[in-house]
């Protein structure tokens, strides 16, 4: 058994260290799983491939999971894919259920991670063949489906949709990059802005600007009261967490993990789309959709199960097509090339042992993540008891580091952080809704590429309806999603009127 020979104490130590560093990176606002993998990539030169992969997979799982901590406790998504975790996680913290939210998030993460690992192990090559059935047209429809969430996320539908489209518009500022097949021209700016804006705004600085810096500005406006974020430190004197919180959520868990895995395996659709999509579906299928967004555990479950479901999903095209499924696996591919190993459709068959070691690493990483986080929660949650005059300067500093480092040292990204911090602060005043805006921003670029490229290839709008049965099925989902949000809006307006009538 060569596999056993690989599972040395060093192997497990590396997974453990990887998960630990990953959680740290994920938990610090502004640092992401991708960054964790990228900075540790050079460390793998001195290791052999399987040890290197143990470390990197640990980082990947840890990094994706760590994002839930600041999302729940501080309302700042630690990584882009934990944005939907803030929608319900932070309200839970405000209600005094921070610890419970964390535990629910961690268990959902574990479930999503293991679920996707199982899918990866048993179905990778078969699923890769399904993934290549998704061309530009189908990918555009998936993005469009994810965009329909905007309507159901906003408190005022019209303003919400406007904010979402504004987000799309902002994402288009910059160059229509040749690396996605564009013509390299800049747009949506005046000539004098070109030197600053030609690369456009990066997701991470925009995200931590809108969520992190904007919050601090809002607090500054209120005078930064002395009490910590949550006056009630003893998180445990409220309803304690128990596995009963997952009652009735089994379908949600499976659905969200599947969505995460599925979106992960479509190259180019992007990790953040996974949690957005699964959050929409959770809302659409919920017994009481009005609760989502106000601190409902099912929102946290949907978001976290799907973003960890992403890990296994994104590895599917990487290992069975040689194509990364998300930005983190794109860095991971470097570990293979640096070791002179080709990934492609024959990788699994030709590298059985490496493949098995990777699976072991992935499962172990998920378990380590669970134990580390579950038992560290008590201490992690104390973050919110730190006085604001200490906490806020640290957050600003870490946001700066994250913004500067995300594209390997670009000062403009730091200014983006400030710009969107101020923008987020002001938009709160004029009623622009931040959640739809950021979703529009995240999905805008892919929406453009897939839309324009579909039309360039086929030259007719009808192709979006007639391309394939998959496309038609996606239209059914889109129709359901839109009808549903219209239905709930009308209902809520009616109940409001009825209440006002009383």
């Amino acid at each position, binding site marked *: 058994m060569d596999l056993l020979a690989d599972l040395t104490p060093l192997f497990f130590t590396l997974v453990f260290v990887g998960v630990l560093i990953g959680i740290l990176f994920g938990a610090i606002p502004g640092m992401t799983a991708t*960054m964790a993998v990228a*900075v*540790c990539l050079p460390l793998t030169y001195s290791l052999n491939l399987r040890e290197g992969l143990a470390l990197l997979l640990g980082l990947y799982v840890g990094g994706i999971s760590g994002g839930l901590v600041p999302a729940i406790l501080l309302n700042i998504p630690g990584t882009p894919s934990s944005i939907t975790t803030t929608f319900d996680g932070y309200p839970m913290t405000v209600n005094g259920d921070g610890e419970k939210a964390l535990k629910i998030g961690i268990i959902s993460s574990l479930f999503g991670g293991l679920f996707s690992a199982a899918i990866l192990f048993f179905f990778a090559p078969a699923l890769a063949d399904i993934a290549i059935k998704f061309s530009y047209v189908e990918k555009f429809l998936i993005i469009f489906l994810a965009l329909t969430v905007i309507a159901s996320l906003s408190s005022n539908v*019209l*303003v919400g*949709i*406007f904010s979402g*489209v*504004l987000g*799309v*518009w902002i994402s*288009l500022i910059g160059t*229509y990059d040749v690396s996605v097949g*564009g*013509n*390299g*021209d*800049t*747009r*949506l700016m005046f000539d004098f802005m070109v030197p600053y804006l030609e690369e456009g705004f990066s997701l991470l600085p925009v995200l931590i600007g809108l969520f992190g810096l904007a919050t*601090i*500005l809002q607090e*500054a*406006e*209120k*005078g*930064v*009261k*002395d009490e910590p974020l949550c006056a009630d430190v003893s998180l445990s004197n409220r309803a304690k967490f128990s596995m009963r919180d997952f009652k009735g959520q089994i379908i949600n868990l499976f659905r969200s993990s599947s969505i995460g895995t599925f979106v992960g395996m479509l190259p180019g659709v992007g990790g953040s789309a996974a949690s957005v999509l699964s959050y929409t579906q959770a809302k659409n299928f919920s017994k009481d959709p009005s609760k989502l967004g106000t601190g409902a555990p099912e929102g946290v479950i949907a978001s976290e199960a799907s973003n960890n479901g992403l890990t296994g999903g994104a590895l599917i095209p990487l290992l069975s097509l040689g194509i990364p499924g998300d930005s983190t696996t794109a860095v991971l591919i470097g570990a293979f090339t640096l070791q002179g190993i080709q990934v492609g459709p024959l990788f699994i068959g030709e590298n059985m042992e490496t493949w098995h070691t990777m699976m072991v690493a992935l499962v172990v990483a998920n378990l380590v993540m669970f134990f580390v986080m579950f038992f560290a929660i008590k201490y992690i949650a104390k973050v919110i008891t730190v006085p*604001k*005059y*200490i906490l*806020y*300067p*640290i957050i*600003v*500093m*870490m946001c*700066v*580091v994250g913004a*500067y*480092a995300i594209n*390997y*040292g670009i*000062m403009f990204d*730091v*200014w983006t952080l*400030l710009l969107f*911090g*101020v923008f987020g602060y002001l938009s709160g005043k004029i009623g622009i809704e931040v959640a739809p805006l950021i979703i529009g921003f995240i999905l*805008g670029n892919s929406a*453009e590429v897939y*839309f*324009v490229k579909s*039309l*360039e290839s086929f*030259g*007719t*709008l*009808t192709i979006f309806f007639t391309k394939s049965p998959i496309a038609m099925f996606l239209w059914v989902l889109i129709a359901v999603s839109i009808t549903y949000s219209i239905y709930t809006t009308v209902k809520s307006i009616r109940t409001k009127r009825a209440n006002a009538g009383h």
Partner: protein
Amino acid sequence: MKSWLASLFHVTIDFQESHMFFPTIVMWVLLFLLALIFIIYGRPYLCALRTGERTLSFSTSHIDKLRLIGTLVLTIAYFLSMDYVGDFFPNTGLGFLFMSIPFMFCLSLLYVHNLNRRKFLTLSLNALIAPGLAWYVLAKLFHITLP
């Protein structure tokens, strides 16, 4: 009939101009939504203004101007100086380290209420240790590029 329909949906995109194709659509949608918002919410609001039910002047008295503007000024100064100082020590991240310490110290001082010796000590130590630790771990251990 069929060909007429087909030509209705037919689209050709000139590659040289393709960078404006999608943004133009988005811009029109944006304008349409803006107009809709104006019709639904803006007009009643303007009417209310004209009749004097509402006034444009909104109070800024609840705003803690010192802390809000202070935050902005400090942040801008921080970003500018970090880049500037960093140029003297290329690729070492020292610009970040040297400017983060005073920035954090000032921001903490700006935010703190009822300053006493203990609080002063905590925030000073924090301003020293946090950037130092961040710099050491990220720039030195992980070789992350910092300003």
